[in-house]
C-alpha cells in the first residue's frame, strides 16, 4: 500500500511542470552564482566568505557554501512541494475519495511524504547538476583564469547534501507537510516558513554573544551557524582541500533538527484522521432552518431603491472596499502570526543595540531605528509578497469573483482598494516598529525618545515599501498565479542583491532605488534628503504607471489569458487613464531627466568598471615617471575656507618644495583630484605647463631653470571644490552641513602616486596589467626613502587659517594663534610649532567643547579638549581619562609627547573610525560617543577609553616613529598602538578584564586569515593587513609582554623610539625593530619571537582529563592531561607540524563572584614546558578547583580556545 501511494506520488509529481520548473530554477541559480564566483561577469563575487584569489570555484568549501546558501532560498520550494502533498486532496476536494478507500494511514501519509521528499530532493539536486555544468562551461570564458577550477570530485557534492540539504529538507519538509496536512491551509504552510526564518534570525542575533557558540549552533534549524562555526577559520588551502566534516557543531545540530522533524511527523501521523473536516475546522452549522414558506409574505414586494453612479460615489465604494480589505488582512490570524513573529524578532534583535566589542551603545533613536528596520524589513517583504497574492485572489479564492465582477463598480475600484489596503498595512507595520523602538528604549531606561526622528525615518521607509506594494500587486495581476507570483517576487529580491555584480549599478534603472540617506546625530539627514526624495518621486511616478497597468490588466470576468486581457485593457483606456498616464509619465521623465543631469552630465558617470579602467590607464600612461627625481614638500601654508551650507571649500596658499636629491630637477609632476577647479596652480618662478591631463588630473611643469640640489621653489595654489548636484551613491560626505571632515588627500601630490594603481590581481588581469605585489620588500632600501604615508614629503612645517560659518568651530592640526570674525565668517589661525608628517585634516561643526588638562612629570601641562555634538556627553570623561592615562604611560615608557595639546573631534558617523593627526584626533560619532559601558560587567569593553588610548598612542607610533614604505611598517604604528592601548587598558582595568577583548582579537585574526585574498604574512612582514597588524598584533604583543615582562619590553621600545623618532630617510623597518625585541628577549624565549613575529604559528592545545582529590589538609591535588600540538602555516594556510617544547601557562581555576558577576580566578598559574602530544600534569591548590588545563587566557593562538580548560572532576 505504502509503495503504491509512494509510486503514485512520484509519477504524479513527475508529470507536473512545477517539478521541472523548480529544478530548472535551482539549476539556473547555481549556474549564475558559480559564473559569478568564477568571474564570468567580471570581477569574481565572493559567496560564503572564501575570498582568497587562490580559492578554486569548485573547491569543496565553495561548493558547500553555495549549495548551502541556495538551499536556504529553497525553503519556498520545499514549502510548495511538501506542504501541498496532502493538502492538494483538500484543495481539489478529492479527499473524500481517498479517505473512504481502504488505505492505511501510514500508507497514505508515509507514501505521500516520502514521495514528495524524493521529488524535493530531485529538485534540489538541480544545484549539484547546475554546479557541475557551470564548472565545465565557466572555464571556456576568457575572463575566467585557467586555474579557477580543480578536478571533479563527487564527494565535494555529496557532503553538503548529506550534512545540509537532506537534513534541512527533512526538517522543513516535516514542518510543511504537517502544517499542510493538519491545517488544510496553504497559508499556514507559509507561516511555517516564516517561523523557520525567525528561528534562524534569532540564532543569528545570538551569534553576537561569543560565549554560547554551541547553543547558537544548535538553535539554528538550517545549520548555517554550525557550518559557519565549523569552517570559519579555514584558510585558503583548507578551503580548497577539506570537505564539510562531521564536526560536533554539525552532527549535534543535524541530529537535533532531524529528530525534531521526525517528532513532528509522528505528531502529524497521530493527529491525522480520515475525516472529512479538519479537526479544528468544525464549522458550527446553523441547525435551525425555518419551516419553508411559513412566514414568508406571499407577494414579492421590494422597496424601490435609488442607484447612484458617479465618481464621488465610486470613491465611496473604493473607500469602503479598502477598509474591508484592510480589516480582512489585519484580522487574519496569519497576519497576526507573522507580526507576532516579527515583533519577537525585533525585540530579540533590538536587545543588542549597537554592539561593538560585545558592548552595547545607548539605545539612541537612530541606532534603534537602524537595527529594528533592518531586521523587520524581511517580515515586511514577506507580508507584501504574501498578501499581494491574497488580495488579488481574495474573491476567486472565496469563489465570489463572478458575483463581484458583475457588480456595477468601475474597474479601478477593486484594484485601487486592494492596493490602498496593502499600503495601509505598511503604515501599521511602521507603527509597530515605532512602538517596539520606544518600548526597547524605555526597557533599557533610556527616555530621550526622538519621536520626530522616528516619524521622519519611518515615513521615508514607508515610501519604499509602498513602491514594493505596487510592484508586488502588478506581478500578481500579470502572472495571474498566486504561487508563481510569490516566486517571482522572491527572485526579484534576490536579483536585487546581486544586481551590482551583474553590472546594473545606475540607480535610474533599478526600481525603488535611492542613493541612501544615512543619518547622523550631528548632520541629521543632511544633504541626502533632497536626492533621496527626488529618486522616490521618480520611482513613485513609475509606480503610478505600474499601478495603471495593473489596473487595466485586472482580471474581471472569466477571461484570464493574458492576450485577452491586453485586448480588454486597450478597450478600457479612457480619458482619465490617459490623463494619469500623461501626468505620471511627465513626472517620471522630468525627475528622471533631472537625476540624469546630476549623475551623468554635471558629473561624469563612472561605474566601478570605468573607475578600474581609469586606474589602469593611469598606471599604463604614467608609471614610466615613477622613478623621476622630484622635489619634496617641506612647508605648507593654506587659507582654507569651508562653506558647509553650499558644500564648497577652497584652498589658497602655497607649498615650499625642496630638491632633496643630488641632481637638478627640471620638471615637476603633480597629481590633483580632478574635481578641483584650479584657480591657480603655478610656481613662483618661470615654468611652463608641458602636460595637463584633465581626466586624471596629471600635470607636468617644466621649470625654466632647473631646481638645483638643496634649492627650494614655491608652488602657489588656489583650488576650489564645489559640490554640483550630486553623484550616484557615495557622494562626498567630507563637506556637509554640520560635521565637515576633509583631509590632505585633496591637495596636490608631487610625483607619480602608485597608491592609485589597481591592487587587486583579478582587476589587474582584466585590465591587462601584470600582478603586483602589495608592498615593497621589507629590506628594499629605495622604498624606505619614503614613509608609508606618502612619497612627496618627509617632515613639514604647517600653518593654516581655516574659516567657516559663524555658528561652527573650524579645526586643523596646530595651535590656535588667533580667532576672529570678519564679513560674517569665523576665522581660526592654526600654526604647528614642530615638524609633522604631511598628513592633516580640516574639520568644522557646531561643537560643544569640554576642556581638561594633564600635567606631565616635568610639570609641563598638556591641554585636553574634546569637541563633541551636544547630546553626546556620555563618554567624554572616559575619553579624557583615556588621554590622561595614555599620556602617563607613553611619556613614562616611550618618550616625551611632542605637542602641548590633545584634541578629540567628533565627526559624523558616515565612517566608523578614529584617526590620529598631529595633536588632533577626529573620532567618529558612531564608535564610542554613545557607547554604554557597564564598568561592573567583566564582559564589557570600555572601548571609548581603548580607542582614545590607541589614537593617542599614534602620536608616538606613527607621528614620531614612522616606518618606510615597505612590508612590516604598520607593525611599528598599528600594532604598537594596539599594544600601547592594551597596556593602558590593563593598567586601568586589570588583566582579568582584558580577556574578553583579547578573545575578540583572536577570533577576528582567525576569521581574517580565512578571508585573506592573497597571502597571509608573518607579523613582521605585514602588508597593511588589518587582521594581522591589529588583531594578531594585539594577541602577540600582549603575550610577549607577559612572557618577557612588560618593563623589559618597554625598555626595548624606549630605546628604539629614541633611535628612530623623527628620523630622516631611509626610514626604519621592522627588521630594525625586531633587533630591539630580540635583544630584550632571553635566549630561552627567542623561539617565541620566531613564532610570533617571523612565522605563522598555531597551537592546538586541549585539556583532555582533569580530576582532583581532596587532601587531608583541605587542599586539592589536581591531576590533568593536556594534549598539545604546534603548527606552522604557510601563506595559503598549509600547515606543518612543528616541534613543541614551549613554555605555556598551566592553570587551575575556580569561579568567583566579583562585583556581582561570575569570573574565572586562577588558583594556580605557572609557565611550564609543554611538549608535543600528551602531558600529564599535577598541581596542588588550596581551594576547590573548577577547571584545569593550559593557557586559560588564550595568550597563544589556538583555533579551539574553549577546550584549553577542562572541568575538574573532584573525588573526595
Amino acid at each position, binding site marked *: 500500500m505504502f509503495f503504491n501511494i509512494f509510486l503514485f506520488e512520484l509519477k504524479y509529481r513527475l508529470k507536473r511542470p512545477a517539478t521541472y520548473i523548480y529544478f530548472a530554477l535551482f539549476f539556473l541559480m547555481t549556474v549564475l552564482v558559480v559564473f559569478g564566483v568564477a568571474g564570468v561577469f567580471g570581477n569574481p563575487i565572493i559567496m560564503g566568505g572564501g575570498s582568497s584569489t587562490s580559492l578554486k570555484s569548485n573547491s569543496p568549501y565553495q561548493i558547500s557554501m553555495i549549495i548551502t546558501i541556495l538551499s536556504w532560498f529553497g525553503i519556498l520550494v520545499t514549502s510548495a512541494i511538501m506542504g501541498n502533498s496532502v493538502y492538494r486532496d483538500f484543495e481539489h476536494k478529492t479527499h473524500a475519495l481517498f479517505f473512504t478507500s481502504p488505505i492505511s494511514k501510514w500508507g497514505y501519509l508515509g507514501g505521500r511524504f516520502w514521495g514528495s521528499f524524493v521529488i524535493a530532493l530531485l529538485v534540489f539536486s538541480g544545484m549539484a547538476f547546475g554546479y557541475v555544468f557551470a564548472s565545465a562551461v565557466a572555464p571556456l570564458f576568457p575572463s575566467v583564469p585557467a586555474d579557477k577550477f580543480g578536478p571533479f570530485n563527487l564527494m565535494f557534492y555529496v557532503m553538503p547534501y548529506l550534512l545540509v540539504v537532506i537534513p534541512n529538507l527533512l526538517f522543513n519538509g516535516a514542518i510543511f507537510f504537517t502544517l499542510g496536512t493538519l491545517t488544510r491551509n496553504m497559508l499556514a504552510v507559509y507561516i511555517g516558513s516564516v517561523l523557520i526564518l525567525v528561528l534562524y534570525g534569532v540564532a543569528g542575533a545570538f551569534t553576537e554573544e561569543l560565549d554560547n557558540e554551541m547553543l547558537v549552533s544548535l538553535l539554528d534549524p538550517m545549520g548555517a551557524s554550525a557550518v559557519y562555526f565549523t569552517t570559519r577559520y579555514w584558510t585558503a588551502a583548507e578551503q580548497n582541500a577539506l570537505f564539510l566534516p562531521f564536526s560536533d557543531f554539525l552532527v549535534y545540530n543535524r541530529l537535533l533538527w532531524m529528530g525534531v522533524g521526525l517528532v513532528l511527523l509522528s505528531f502529524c501521523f497521530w493527529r491525522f484522521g480520515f475525516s472529512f473536516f479538519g479537526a479544528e475546522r468544525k*464549522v*458550527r*452549522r*446553523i441547525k*435551525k*432552518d*425555518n419551516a*419553508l*414558506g411559513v*412566514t*414568508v*409574505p406571499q*407577494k*414579492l*414586494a*421590494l*422597496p*424601490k*431603491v*435609488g*442607484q*447612484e*453612479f458617479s465618481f464621488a*460615489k465610486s470613491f*465611496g*465604494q473604493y473607500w*469602503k*472596499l479598502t477598509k*474591508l480589505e484592510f480589516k480582512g488582512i489585519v484580522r487574519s490570524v496569519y497576519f497576526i502570526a507573522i507580526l507576532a513573529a516579527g515583533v519577537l524578532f525585533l525585540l530579540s534583535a533590538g536587545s543588542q543595540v549597537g554592539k561593538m566589542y560585545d558592548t552595547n551603545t545607548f539605545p539612541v533613536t537612530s541606532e534603534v531605528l537602524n537595527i529594528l528596520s533592518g531586521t523587520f524589513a524581511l517580515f515586511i517583504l514577506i507580508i507584501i509578497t504574501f498578501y499581494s497574492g491574497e488580495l488579488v485572489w481574495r474573491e476567486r479564492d*472565496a*469563489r*465570489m469573483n*463572478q*458575483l*463581484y*465582477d*458583475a*457588480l*456595477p*463598480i*468601475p474597474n479601478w475600484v477593486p484594484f485601487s482598494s486592494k492596493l490602498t489596503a496593502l499600503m495601509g498595512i505598511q503604515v501599521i507595520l511602521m507603527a509597530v516598529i515605532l512602538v517596539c523602538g520606544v518600548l526597547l528604549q524605555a526597557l533599557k531606561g533610556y527616555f530621550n525618545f526622538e519621536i520626530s526622528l522616528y516619524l521622519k525615518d519611518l515615513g521615508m521607509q514607508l515610501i519604499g515599501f509602498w513602491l514594493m506594494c505596487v510592484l508586488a500587486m502588478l506581478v500578481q495581476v500579470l502572472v495571474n498565479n498566486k504561487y508563481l507570483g510569490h516566486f517571482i517576487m522572491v527572485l526579484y529580491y534576490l536579483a536585487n542583491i546581486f544586481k551590482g555584480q551583474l553590472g546594473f549599478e545606475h540607480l535610474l534603472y533599478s526600481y525603488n532605488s535611492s542613493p541612501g540617506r544615512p543619518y547622523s546625530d550631528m548632520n541629521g539627514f543632511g544633504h541626502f534628503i533632497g536626492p533621496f526624495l527626488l529618486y522616490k518621486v521618480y520611482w513613485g511616478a513609475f509606480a503610478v504607471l505600474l499601478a495603471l497597468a495593473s489596473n487595466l490588466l485586472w482580471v*474581471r*470576468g*472569466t*477571461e484570464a*489569458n493574458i492576450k*485577452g486581457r491586453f*485586448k*480588454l485593457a486597450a478597450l478600457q483606456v479612457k480619458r482619465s487613464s490617459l490623463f494619469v498616464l500623461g501626468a505620471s509619465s511627465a513626472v517620471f521623465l522630468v525627475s528622471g531627466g533631472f537625476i540624469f543631469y546630476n549623475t551623468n552630465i554635471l558629473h561624469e558617470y563612472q561605474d566601478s568598471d570605468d573607475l578600474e579602467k581609469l586606474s589602469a590607464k593611469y598606471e599604463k600612461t604614467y608609471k614610466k615617471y615613477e622613478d623621476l627625481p622630484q622635489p619634496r614638500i617641506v612647508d605648507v601654508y593654506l587659507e582654507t575656507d569651508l562653506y558647509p551650507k553650499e558644500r564648497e571649500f577652497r584652498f589658497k596658499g602655497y607649498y615650499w618644495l625642496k630638491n632633496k636629491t643630488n641632481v637638478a630637477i627640471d620638471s615637476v609632476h603633480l597629481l590633483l583630484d580632478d574635481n578641483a577647479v584650479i584657480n591657480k596652480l603655478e610656481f613662483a618662478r618661470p615654468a611652463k605647463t608641458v602636460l595637463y591631463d584633465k581626466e586624471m588630473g596629471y600635470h607636468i611643469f617644466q621649470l625654466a631653470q632647473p631646481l638645483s640640489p638643496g634649492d627650494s621653489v614655491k608652488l602657489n595654489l588656489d583650488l576650489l571644490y564645489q559640490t554640483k548636484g550630486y553623484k550616484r551613491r557615495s557622494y562626498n560626505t567630507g563637506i556637509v552641513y554640520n560635521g565637515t571632515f576633509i583631509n590632505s588627500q585633496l591637495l596636490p601630490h608631487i610625483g607619480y602616486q602608485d597608491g592609485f594603481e589597481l591592487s587587486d590581481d583579478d582587476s589587474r588581469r582584466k585590465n591587462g596589467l601584470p600582478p603586483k605585489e602589495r608592498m615593497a620588500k621589507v629590506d628594499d632600501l629605495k622604498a624606505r626613502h619614503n614613509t608609508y604615508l606618502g612619497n612627496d614629503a618627509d617632515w613639514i612645517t604647517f600653518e593654516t587659517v581655516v574659516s567657516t560659518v559663524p555658528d561652527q568651530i573650524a579645526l586643523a592640526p596646530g595651535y590656535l594663534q588667533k580667532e576672529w570674525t570678519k564679513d560674517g565668517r569665523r576665522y581660526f589661525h592654526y600654526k604647528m610649532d614642530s615638524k609633522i608628517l604631511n598628513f592633516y585634516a580640516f574639520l568644522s561643526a557646531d561643537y560643544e567643547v569640554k576642556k581638561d588638562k594633564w600635567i606631565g612629570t616635568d610639570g609641563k601641562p598638556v591641554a585636553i579638549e574634546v569637541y563633541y555634538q551636544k547630546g553626546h556627553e556620555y563618554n567624554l570623561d572616559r575619553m579624557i581619562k583615556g588621554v590622561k592615562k595614555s599620556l602617563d604611560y607613553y611619556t613614562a615608557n616611550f618618550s616625551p609627547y611632542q605637542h602641548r595639546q590633545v584634541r578629540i573631534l567628533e565627526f559624523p558617523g558616515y565612517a566608523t573610525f578614529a584617526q590620529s593627526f598631529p595633536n588632533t584626533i577626529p573620532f567618529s560619532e558612531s564608535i564610542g560617543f554613545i557607547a554604554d559601558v557597564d564598568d561592573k560587567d567583566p564582559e564589557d569593553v570600555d572601548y571609548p577609553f581603548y580607542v582614545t588610548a590607541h589614537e593617542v598612542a599614534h602620536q608616538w607610533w606613527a607621528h614620531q616613529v614612522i616606518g618606510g614604505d615597505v612590508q612590516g611598517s604598520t607593525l611599528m604604528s598599528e600594532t604598537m598602538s594596539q599594544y600601547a592601548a592594551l597596556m593602558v587598558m590593563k593598567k586601568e582595568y586589570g588583566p582579568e578584564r582584558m580577556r574578553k577583548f583579547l578573545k575578540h582579537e583572536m577570533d577576528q585574526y582567525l576569521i581574517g586569515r580565512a578571508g585573506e585574498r592573497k597571502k597571509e604574512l608573518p607579523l613582521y612582514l605585514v602588508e597593511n593587513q588589518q587582521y594581522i597588524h591589529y588583531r594578531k598584533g594585539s594577541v602577540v604583543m600582549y603575550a610577549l609582554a607577559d612572557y618577557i615582562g612588560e618593563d623589559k619590553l618597554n625598555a626595548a621600545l624606549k630605546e628604539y623610539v629614541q633611535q628612530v623618532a623623527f628620523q630622516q630617510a631611509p626610514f626604519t623597518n621592522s627588521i630594525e625593530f625586531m633587533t630591539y625585541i630580540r635583544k630584550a628577549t632571553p635566549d630561552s624565549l627567542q623561539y617565541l619571537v620566531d613564532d610570533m613575529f617571523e612565522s605563522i604559528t598555531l597551537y592546538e592545545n586541549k585539556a583532555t582529563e582533569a580530576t582532583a582529590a581532596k587532601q587531608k589538609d583541605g587542599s586539592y591535588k589536581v591531576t590533568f592531561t593536556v594534549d598539545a600540538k604546534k603548527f606552522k602555516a604557510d601563506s595559503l594556510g598549509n600547515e606543518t607540524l612543528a616541534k613543541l617544547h614551549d613554555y605555556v601557562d598551566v592553570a587551575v581555576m575556580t569561579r568567583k563572584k566579583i562585583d556581582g558577576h561570575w569570573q574565572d580566578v586562577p588558583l594556580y598559574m605557572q609557565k611550564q614546558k609543554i611538549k608535543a602530544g600528551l602531558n600529564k600534569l599535577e598541581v596542588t591548590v588550596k581551594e576547590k578547583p573548577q577547571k584545569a588545563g593550559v593557557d586559560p587566557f588564550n595568550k597563544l593562538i589556538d583555533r579551539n580556545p574553549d577546550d584549553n580548560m577542562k572541568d575538574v572532576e573532584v573525588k573526595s
Partner: protein
Amino acid sequence: MELVIQNLSKTYPNGVQALKNVNLTIPTGMFGLLGPNGAGKSSLMRTIATLQEADSGSIRLGDLDVFKEKDEMRRVLGYLPQEFGVYPKVSAEELLDHFAVLKGIHNSKERKETVAALLQQTNLYEVRKKNLGGYSGGMKQRFGIAQALLGNPKIIIVDEPTAGLDPAERNRFHNLLSEIGENIIVILSTHIVDDVSDLCRNMAIINKGEVLLTGEPLQAIDEMQGQIWRKFIKKEELAQHQAEHTVISSRLYAGKTIIHVYAQDRPDIAFEQVQPDLEDVYFATISGATKKPQRTQAEPEVMA
C-alpha cells in the same frame, strides 16, 4: 425591453467551441435555457453577464450594447452564477449590505430597508446575523438570489440555481423567481426540464453551443403531438432498439426499461403512443431526432 443576441460565437483557447452562431431574442418574463451539462449554457450566461468576451456577434439589451457598455449593463443586472462562494466569517446581513453599496445604493436608509426586505423574502431574516460559513447549500443559494435582486435589476441571470436544493427549497425558489419574472427579464439556465415547464413562458434548447430550438414550451409540446411512442423492453434489448429506432430516452420503471421513440408513425405494434411532454421535446431536440432521424449517443462532455 428585449435582450437580443445575434450571431454570438466563442471558441476557448483550448479549441472548444462553446457558442456557435447563437441567435436569441429574450422578452420580459421567465426564459428557460435548457441543455445538458456542457452545452454552453454557462458560457452564454457569463457572456450576457459581462464576464466573458465573445469572438463575434452582439448582445443588446434594449438600446444598450452589452459588450461596449459593460458598466451600464451591470447597473441593471442581477447575476447568480452556477457556483459561488461566500466569505465564511461575514454575516448575511453585512455581506448583503456590502453588495448593496457596490450596487450603487448609497442612501443608507434605503439600503437598510431593501436588505431587510430581501432577507425576509429569501427567508434568511432570522439567521441574518449568523456567519455565512454555517449556511446550508439552500440557504447559501437563497442568499445568492437575494444579492442578485439588489437594486431593482432589469435583467436577472440565474445559472442552474436549483442544483443541490431539496424539493421544498426548490419549490420555494421557483415561487420567488416566477414573481420576479413578471416584469423583468429572468434567464434561467437548467438541465432539469421540469424547471422550465413549471416556470417559463419562453425557452431555448441549446446543445454543443448551438441553439436547437426556441419558443414557448406548450407550443413545442404541441408540435410533437403524435410522434412519441413508448415501449417496455428488457434491458438487453436496448441496443437492438437503438439500432432500429430513434430512441430519444430510456429509463427504468419498476424494474423494466421504458423507451421513448420519436417517429412519424407507430414503429410497430408493441409501441403505444404517449402524450409528449417537454422532456420528450428536450430529448428529441438534443438527440437531433427532430432534424434527421438518428440514434442518440453519449455526448462528449464539453467543459465550459
